């Protein structure tokens, strides 16, 4: 059955009456406005809703990660994420241990964040305080779930004997008994039992498997020398505790443990502890007596507290894959099956090894995919998602699932004006759609100052996206042009070797010159260097500028050479012939002979080729005449030299 979707409301009367429509804007935001569809054939008149004040609502996802206090998570986790990817790319045989370390790193990042939040929440009031407390709840759950997942799915526990880790997990998340014990032990040690929470602490610690501390506290009881106390101490001392490193096998352990159970049970039956009801309770708990456990289950805040405790005394060698059924029993025992909080559901799913359910559930944790992306990635690399892949070689479901999360998370970050670099690094590790997504999104990053634009360009270059680099340079060039900075526009065209754009700009320079005789950006033109080769028009411009310089330096011979080469080069744009020929005129009529006969022939030849050009009609006669005279001069001069 499809659950109904969440519907979000736009607080606007007009929207309610008319209906709404939406347009997307980068990266994943919507512009929503009141809308009434009008068909092409309807009459053109004001709508039934006018006059009205129409508004556009810019709707976006609320991202708590962008809050400064949580934002550290984004960057710190990014560092760890990249370490995970690097690790996996090295194919190291020890990757499992390293992955575990990285998982712990993730958790310490969350814990650091929680500490920060705790500090802040003390200082704040009102709505802000509520908000911070909400974040604390969210990330507390995140860390709790992560820790359990780490134990069950990432850590390579020898023999799968999960209980010691489970106990550690519980102890970490329910530290109140240890704290109380510490307080008790630090205070007045005489007559400790008179402290109000003495027995509560002892029993609580017993349930957390803290046998040593329990014994220490009992020894400080004023009646510690009495028989029941001594007996309890002995019994607890003798209690076998399973450890994979103890060297004995599970079967051997079970034998020993069963002996101990029988032994202890007989002591209980013999009513040896009956004088001290707390001790009696403790002993009954330690042998797993149902009624005793029913009595204490209210000590537990959560069913998993109860679970770990109970398993310690009833199933010490339990394997991780057996947890599920016991978890369910604890839940129904505590009567919360119908009142499970979200966190409970996730933890249950984890204990039942239902990884898919875990992943489904953590998406509801409202921290915008941070948790789901990083954890799924970790699980994927730990090989825990392999079961999703069917036998067909190309049906890589696990990889797609991981990629789905990373794509979403990366895209989310790309939409933040500061965190886009982090977003890119996630998209980089999406093998199927990553690069395409980057291509679509990187061009949408607003360019801002040139410094920022250059950083964006650099990211595109790093990922081998030359067409995007060129597009960005073109846009920067157009922006410069609109601001009247044609030299800067040309620089951008040259940086990206955009010959089309360079030609267009060179044209602008030349037209400007031919209209009002001013050559702009002389500092740029003076130093084009080899970059001018990117466009023919630009080569012409560069050479023409050189001509100008040489002319002004009164080096007429050189000027003559240049002008002839320009004329002969076929690079001259039509509209510029007139100007170029006008420049040639004084050289032809110069007192000093600067143009050789060959050069003059070349000039005349070009003139003939272009004689039909309307632009030069007025000058053509003059030039012909001057050329003829120069030719005469030159020929005479050259004849004399021979």
């Amino acid at each position, binding site marked *: 059955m499809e659950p109904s979707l969440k519907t979000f409301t736009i607080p606007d009367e007009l929207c309610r009456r008319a209906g709404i429509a939406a347009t997307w804007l980068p990266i994943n935001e919507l512009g929503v406005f009141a809308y009434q569809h009008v068909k092409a054939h309807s009459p053109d008149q004001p709508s039934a809703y006018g006059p009205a004040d129409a508004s556009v609502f810019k709707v976006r996802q609320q991202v708590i990660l962008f809050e400064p206090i949580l934002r550290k998570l984004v960057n710190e986790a990014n560092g760890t994420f990249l370490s995970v990817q690097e690790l996996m790319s090295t194919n190291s045989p020890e990757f499992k241990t390293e992955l575990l370390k990285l998982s712990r790193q993730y958790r310490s990042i969350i814990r650091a964040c929680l500490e920060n939040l705790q500090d802040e929440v003390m200082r704040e009031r009102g709505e802000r305080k509520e908000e911070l407390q909400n974040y604390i709840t969210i990330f507390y759950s995140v860390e709790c779930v992560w820790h359990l997942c780490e134990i069950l799915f990432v850590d390579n526990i020898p023999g799968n004997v999960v209980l010691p880790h489970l106990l550690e997990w519980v102890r970490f998340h329910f530290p109140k008994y240890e704290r109380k014990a510490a307080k008790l032990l630090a205070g007045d040690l005489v007559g400790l039992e008179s402290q109000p929470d003495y027995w509560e602490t002892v029993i609580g610690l017993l349930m957390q498997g803290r046998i040593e501390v329990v014994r220490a506290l009992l020894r400080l009881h004023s009646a510690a020398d009495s028989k029941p106390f001594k007996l309890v101490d002995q019994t607890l001392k003798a209690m076998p505790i399973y450890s994979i490193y103890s060297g004995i096998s599970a079967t051997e352990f079970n034998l020993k443990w069963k002996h101990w159970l029988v032994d202890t049970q007989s002591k209980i039956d013999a009513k040896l502890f009956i004088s001290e009801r707390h001790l009696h309770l403790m002993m009954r708990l330690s042998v797993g007596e149902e009624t005793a456990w029913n009595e204490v289950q209210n000590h537990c805040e959560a069913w998993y507290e109860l679970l770990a405790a109970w398993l310690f005394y009833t199933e010490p060698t339990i394997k991780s894959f057996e947890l599920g059924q016991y978890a369910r029993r604890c839940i129904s025992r505590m009567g919360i099956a119908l009142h499970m909080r979200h966190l409970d559901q996730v933890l249950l799913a984890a204990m039942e090894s239902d990884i898919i359910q875990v992943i489904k559930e953590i998406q509801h944790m409202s921290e915008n995919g941070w948790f789901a992306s990083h954890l799924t990635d970790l699980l994927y690399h730990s090989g825990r998602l392999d079961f999703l892949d069917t036998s067909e070689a190309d049906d890589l479901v696990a990889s797609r699932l991981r990629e789905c999360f990373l794509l979403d998370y990366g895209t989310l970050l790309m939409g933040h004006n500061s965190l886009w670099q982090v977003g890119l690094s996630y998209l980089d590790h999406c093998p199927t759609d990553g690069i395409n997504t980057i291509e679509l999104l990187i061009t949408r990053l607003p360019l*801002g100052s040139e410094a920022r634009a250059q950083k964006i360009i650099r990211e595109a270059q790093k990922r081998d996206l030359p067409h995007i680099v060129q597009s960005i340079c073109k846009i920067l060039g157009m922006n410069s042009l609109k601001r009247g*900075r044609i030299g*800067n526009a040309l620089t951008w065209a040259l940086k990206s070797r955009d010959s089309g754009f360079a030609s267009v700009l060179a044209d602008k320079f030349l037209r400007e010159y031919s209209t009002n005789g001013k050559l702009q950006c002389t500092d740029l033109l003076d130093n084009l260097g080899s970059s001018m080769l990117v466009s023919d028009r630009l080569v012409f411009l560069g050479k023409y500028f050189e001509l100008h310089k040489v002319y002004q330096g009164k080096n007429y011979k050189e000027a003559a050479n240049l002008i002839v080469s320009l004329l002969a080069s076929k690079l001259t744009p039509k509209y510029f012939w007139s100007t170029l020929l006008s420049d040639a005129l004084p050289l032809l009529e110069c007192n000093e002979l600067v143009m050789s006969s060959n050069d003059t022939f070349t000039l005349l030849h070009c003139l003939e080729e272009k004689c039909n050009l309307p632009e030069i009609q007025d000058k053509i006669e003059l030039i012909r005449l001057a050329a003829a005279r120069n030719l005469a001069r030159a020929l005479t001069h050259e004849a004399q030299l021979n």
Partner: protein
Amino acid sequence: MTQNVHGTFISEKTNKIRWRPDPFGYSNSFITGSWDNDQNNIKLWNFEENEDDPDIYPFVIKNYPFEGDVTEAKFANPDYFVASSSLGSLYCLKVSSEITGETIITEERSWNKLHRSKNGDASSCTSFGMYESDIVTVGEDGNINLLTAQRKDIVRTIDEADSCSLNCVIFLKFNEILTGNLRGQMKIWDLRSNENKPTTTFMLSGDQIAATSLTFHPTQRHMIVAGDEEGSLTVWDLRQNIFPVNLLSAHSDSVSEIHFHPDHPDQLFSCSSSGELWHWITNRSGTLLNIENVETNPWFSTDSIKNKFEVFMLMPKLHKPINSLDLNRNRVLCSCDNEAIYLINNVNVYN
């Protein structure tokens, strides 16, 4: 002594990080100027050094909201610093204490939209240089502005100083500045001249590579080192000619900042967009230490460079650009686009 690196994530990208100078020489306070944020800030930080706890935690003592990205920031003296913005403005800011003991940052002087394009849009003020109380700014509008901290009006504007955006500027002498533009064209300007033309122009390299950072040697101001957008360092001796003396292919990506150590000029520090932070030390062997003797200044030597320098990585390569660095005694501060700042202690600056 082993160096230790302390990183702190600060939830914003820092474009410039600067030690606050201390009259006694040993700072424990610094500023960061952010960029690319919804609301940019300049933050003044202190840090506690605990003898028992090796970890150093910097904490913010004052936050100053800033309009636009912080493109450059420099301290003029322990209480005044100047900051430029990507919205074209320049600010002189003062750090002081109230009677209550609280530290405040106030604006002493500001020049709004100092750099702007012809249509009035703001244009980024990309960099500025300071010489005593004179300030020279450059921007994307290709203009150069001369200001002085003592006067509100602009002393002089060189309009259209460059047809491309200007990236960097330093004072060579009290009346001479060097600017670099987007395509690597360097210009020397004589400020006494009334003409709006540079006295000298030269290219950083043949290929339109922009200079991204400029610095001069602490005792020999004619010696300039420029970092470019491909990661190379170029050295000039401007007294001789405008052709580079040395070209060192260094980082794998754009050089963000270069600094000579003010007290140990034989050492250079550089950071880059490829996340590298390097410490360059000239090899010591007798007379090489004598900086006054130009011929043996290793930076000017045209011989094989390899024998002249040792380069150390001050910290493992980061995966995001390092934008800025600053030096104080044997400590280096740097800031990275991963929204973290790093303090490196016990850097080997002493022989």
